[in-house]
């Protein structure tokens, strides 16, 4: 199993949540102090450098117009890590190609970073969470189609070397596409996608040999998604690669009390408030889910988990915390419950968790948890063809 350090680079120094209606999309920029922001950017990047020395790989993401995430351009932070780290792989999870558009520019940026870090880059593509629709002003009813047209075009741009080609698709139209530079890794860096329910996208990811990642979901849901991925895997005659990834919030402490204190700080992330219209723009989820929403039975996918307490979140595997042995046991239990998985993305920093405690937790994880889980085997396909091999 591979383990990846992650922070969303939050800006937690806000008025109390009960004085705000939302900390996403429309929270005025006056609440951002550039002096504090400068410290935070440098601190979070320092923690990635420490993570590199501790033996972690690195995961980065981006969001827009939100205090939950100051990283508004993952290619920029990835480019910094490409120079400042030496060992770990760097995964952008991901490029919001549905919202950003311009998949050819994304392919160029990824190729450049991949060359700078000499092939340590993993390239994720994401559809983007519902809030992102507003900052990008993307039509919320077409994000899946935009995602896949963008991924397929980026991969074609990476792998077409002999002559320029043109592309006149539904969302992107370009002439004479001809990448300089092309990626360091051949034929292209590993591709990842994320998902939380869309089985069609999971099957597409499996069929193309891409890694499938899901975040902060209970284990029974994760098993359902990973099973769909694995059962699609060999049926489609894969060239190889692929795999599954899961991200919980993680805090490793010297004592149980210390760990619970840390966990209560990092679940700040799940308590971040968002006004209802940003949680479910029209057409972002299928009509069947919106029928439930009209009945009041669905108000966004993270809401259900948010409302439950820390104990429940630990039981479900969404938050893993405790002493090193306890955390290792929780990882192994999750691994067993979901039929195994390949990449553990550890969100080890969120909210007000300060540098000292973040590094303490990361260090304990690296020195005492990592050796216990590193040997967990890569997963096997579930379908009949896979079982027969």
């Amino acid at each position: 199993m591979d383990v990846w350090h992650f922070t969303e680079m939050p800006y937690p120094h806000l008025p109390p949540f009960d004085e705000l209606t939302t900390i996403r999309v429309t929270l005025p920029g006056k609440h951002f102090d550039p002096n504090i922001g400068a410290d935070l950017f440098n601190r979070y990047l320092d923690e990635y450098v420490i993570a590199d020395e501790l033996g972690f790989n690195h995961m980065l993401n981006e969001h827009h117009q939100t205090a939950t995430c100051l990283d508004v351009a993952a290619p920029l932070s990835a480019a910094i890590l490409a120079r400042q780290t030496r060992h770990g792989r760097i995964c952008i999870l991901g490029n919001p190609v549905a919202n950003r558009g311009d998949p050819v520019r994304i392919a160029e940026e990824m190729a450049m970073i991949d060359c700078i870090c000499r092939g340590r880059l993993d390239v994720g593509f994401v559809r983007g969470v519902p809030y992102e629709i507003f900052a990008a002003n993307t039509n919320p009813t077409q994000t899946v189609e935009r995602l896949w047209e963008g991924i397929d075009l980026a991969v074609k741009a990476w792998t077409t070397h002999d002559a320029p080609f043109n592309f006149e698709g539904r969302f992107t139209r370009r002439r004479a596409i001809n990448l300089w530079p092309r990626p360091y890794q051949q034929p292209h860096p590993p591709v990842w996608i994320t998902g939380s329910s869309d089985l069609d996208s999971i099957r597409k990811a499996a069929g193309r040999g891409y890694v499938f990642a899901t975040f902060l979901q209970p284990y029974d849901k994760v098993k359902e998604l990973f099973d769909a991925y694995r059962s699609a895997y060999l049926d489609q005659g894969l060239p190889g690669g692929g795999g599954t990834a899961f991200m919980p919030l993680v805090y490793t402490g010297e004592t149980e009390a210390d760990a619970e204190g840390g966990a209560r700080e990092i679940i700040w992330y799940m308590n971040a408030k968002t006004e209802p219209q940003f949680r479910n723009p029209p057409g972002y989820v299928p009509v069947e889910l919106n029928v439930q929403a009209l009945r009041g039975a669905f108000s966004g996918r993270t809401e259900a988990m948010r409302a439950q307490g820390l104990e429940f979140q630990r039981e479900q595997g969404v938050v893993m915390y405790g002493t090193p042995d306890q955390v290792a046991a929780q990882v192994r239990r999750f691994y067993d419950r979901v039929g195994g998985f390949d990449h553990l993305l550890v969100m080890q920093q969120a909210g007000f968790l300060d540098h000292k405690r973040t590094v303490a937790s990361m260090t304990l994880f690296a020195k005492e948890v990592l050796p216990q889980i590193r040997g967990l085997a890569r997963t096997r396909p579930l379908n009949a063809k896979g079982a027969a091999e």
Partner: protein
Amino acid sequence: MTASLLRISGMELEVERRGQGAPLLVLCGEEALELDSPVLAELARDHELIIPSPPGFGRSGRPDWIETPDDISYLYLDLVETLGLPKLPAVGFSLGGWIALEMAAKDDSFLSHLVLVDPYGVKIGGPTDRDIADVWTLHPKRVAALKWFDQDKGRRDFTAMSDGELTIVARNNESFARFCWDPYMHNPKLKRFLHRVRVPTLFVWGEHDGIVTPDYGRAYSRLVPGADFATIGGAGHYPHLEQPAEFMTLVRGFLG
């Protein structure tokens, strides 16, 4: 009353025909609240109402290539031709008013009169002017307050609806966003062609419409040569639902 699916421009379009008399084209608003309203019942007493559901609304299909009210207007012009209708009046509510103007700007020869009720469709101000309140970025409670003079008239009990009814509500919401998300609720080109609308036209506006204000309505009406503009008090975005009697008086006076 009959609703059927017609094959128009290669897609299935739901068209309801209701009432008896001279035909009248009814283009509903994005929420299709008109369908059960007293206003349509009243109009159906002396007209045969032709009520199409736009692509993605009601039971109409929604092929990917249809992306704007401009596209929908071509479908509806095909529909009018296919049905072989005589010259007829049209009433368009909200989104339906916008589609009616998209049709009339292309070809108004099928129309005798045009009634537009708080339509969207054009941008009047500059880049930082919010001509049309952003119903997707504002809190739903704020949207309701802007839309209705009397919010009680706008309350809908979704828990009492069947799955089939809720599916149509959810699908209508989704399709409204598909066609109107960006450019937000307007076609930047439409106002350049509204001079082509030469049939008698009446804009009706709710005095308290906070989504598209009466000032927006007045500016919009001035883009259509000779158009009349009338307001209805005690009403927001749906004056025909909040003040049906006054609305019917205006419409009957205009249609003659």
